[in-house]
């Protein structure tokens, strides 16, 4: 199913690191090549035909993204260089101006570095306090646990919809409802969820959402920031310069453009954004509900097989996304990944950019398999076969 659309899959590899980045279908690559070969002009000019076409294609992607996450207005979508860029803009362009000494920022210890480090700095600069939602025995977030840390000083909750190591799907709808009843903003890291399930920002009532194109079949170097219109309008641009100003003069007066352009200074990643349009269309063609369903099947299949191997410890058995974290007893995770690499199996080893997770699991490092809809049962069989024989791993990992 769909595998023939992905040039990378013509190689003899088993790619199981989709949480890091996804493979790209031919249509995405072709779309970018088409831009470079046939209308390679800058955006925001429109003085000549090919530039006008760039603007049309670029803005068409924005409309596709709007529709994909069911935002109300196009102005609620800003293109950035990636999810990391998006969250840094949210934190530094919005919350840095809002937070005061003693205000509370609520995170969890299983967040990705990008959803922790910007908050550390803004807390340091403003005197705000970082608190973590206590996690349950499965390392999950529950509404009750969230309530136990919220106080009248809580200003923002920033959490992943799906975490990149534990792979738990957070109950964000309930969390957002509770947060809004208490005048708390909610920032959602959608990097591991938007590529894998249908997300409706209007239904969920999300304040801020950020994610990356490259984890959802799109090019690298493109990120998306969604914010509700009023909130987006209050994000202060971090980058000033070309494309985002209406005028400036020698009295140092600057008039900026409206959103979203105001927040996209400089020449954007035009080829990437335009290429991303094909990724969205492709995902819509496959259907997000089908993708979610297929990944659940694959996950269940993988878990069922791994459970038959006594020397495998699964760390997130109860999670229900396509992310499976595990260790081979007595063997360091990186050694196992080196061994698997000899058979062209790509999995991730390490702490997966979630360095606080060790406080939760008590285990700093693990192997992570992250599935996408183009993976197959037969690829999982190959992986499992390689993991079955511990002596073979020991012998061949060096």
């Amino acid at each position, binding site marked *: 199913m769909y595998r023939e659309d992905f040039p990378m899959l013509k190689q003899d590899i088993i790619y199981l690191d989709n949480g890091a980045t996804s493979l790209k279908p031919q249509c995405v690559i072709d779309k970018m090549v088409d831009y470079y070969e046939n209308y390679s002009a800058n955006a925001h000019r429109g003085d000549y035909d090919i530039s006008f076409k760039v603007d049309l294609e670029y803005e068409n992607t924005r409309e596709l993204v709007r529709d994909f996450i069911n935002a109300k207005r196009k102005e609620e979508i800003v293109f950035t260089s990636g999810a990391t860029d998006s969250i840094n803009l949210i934190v530094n362009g919005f919350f840095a101006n809002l937070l005061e000494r003693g205000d509370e920022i609520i995170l969890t210890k299983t967040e990705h570095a990008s959803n922790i480090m910007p908050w550390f700095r803004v807390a340091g600069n403003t005197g705000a306090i970082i608190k973590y939602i206590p996690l349950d025995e499965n390392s999950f977030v529950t509404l009750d646990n969230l309530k136990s840390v919220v106080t009248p000083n809580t200003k923002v909750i920033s959490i992943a919809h799906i975490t990149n190591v534990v792979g738990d799907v957070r109950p964000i709808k309930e969390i957002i409802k509770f947060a809004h009843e208490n005048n708390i903003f909610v920032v959602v890291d959608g990097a591991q969820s938007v590529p894998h399930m249908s997300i409706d920002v209007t239904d969920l009532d999300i304040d801020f959402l950020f994610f990356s194109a490259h984890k959802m079949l799109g090019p690298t170097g493109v990120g998306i920031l969604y914010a509700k219109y009023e909130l987006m309008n209050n994000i202060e641009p971090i980058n000033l310069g070309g494309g985002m100003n209406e005028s400036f003069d020698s009295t140092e007066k600057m008039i900026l453009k409206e959103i979203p352009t105001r927040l996209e200074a400089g020449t954007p990643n035009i080829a990437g954004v335009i290429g991303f349009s094909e990724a969205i269309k492709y995902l819509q063609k496959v259907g997000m509900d089908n993708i979610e369903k297929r990944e659940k099947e694959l996950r269940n299949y993988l878990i069922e097989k791994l459970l038959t191997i006594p020397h495998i410890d699964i760390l997130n058995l109860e999670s229900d996304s396509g992310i499976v974290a595990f260790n081979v007893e007595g063997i360091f995770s990186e050694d196992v990944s*080196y061994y698997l690499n000899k058979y062209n199996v790509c999995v991730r080893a*390490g702490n997966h950019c979630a360095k606080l997770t060790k406080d939760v699991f008590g285990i700093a490092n693990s192997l992570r398999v992250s599935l996408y809809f183009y993976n197959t049962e037969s690829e999982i069989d190959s992986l499992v076969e390689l993991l079955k024989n511990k002596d073979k791993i*020991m012998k061949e990992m*060096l």
Partner: protein
Amino acid sequence: MDELKREIILENFQNPYNKEEVKSEDYKLVNTRNPNCIDNIDLYIKIEDNIIKDIKFNGEACAISTSSTSIMIKNLIGKSIEDAKRYIQNFYNMCDELEYDEDLLNEGIAFQDIYKQSNRKNCALLPYRGILKALEDYEN
């Protein structure tokens, strides 16, 4: 990798020499890690009168890093700083495909072919970077 070298590495990985945490103030602590992977080792070093009296280590690291640390420790204990530096330089030379003296290496010879895997060369050199820093600090 040939069988004998593999056995040396595995033996030192599964039964590493002097792998224990040290609290004593007689030991100086140096952390050494690879920024691009997850190897993270603490070395505890006791030097008296220019002689390395003892080294212990602790931490999380792959088979190559762990066994390289174990083997390095076995070879450096009892050496003067000068002799230790000679051993270290010789090991570096082997990893960097320069001229080196096989006879000085003892079990360290197990990493003779590590240069062929550039990503794992850093694992083998990890403890050496740490000990060099400790020796530098001692001399200053």
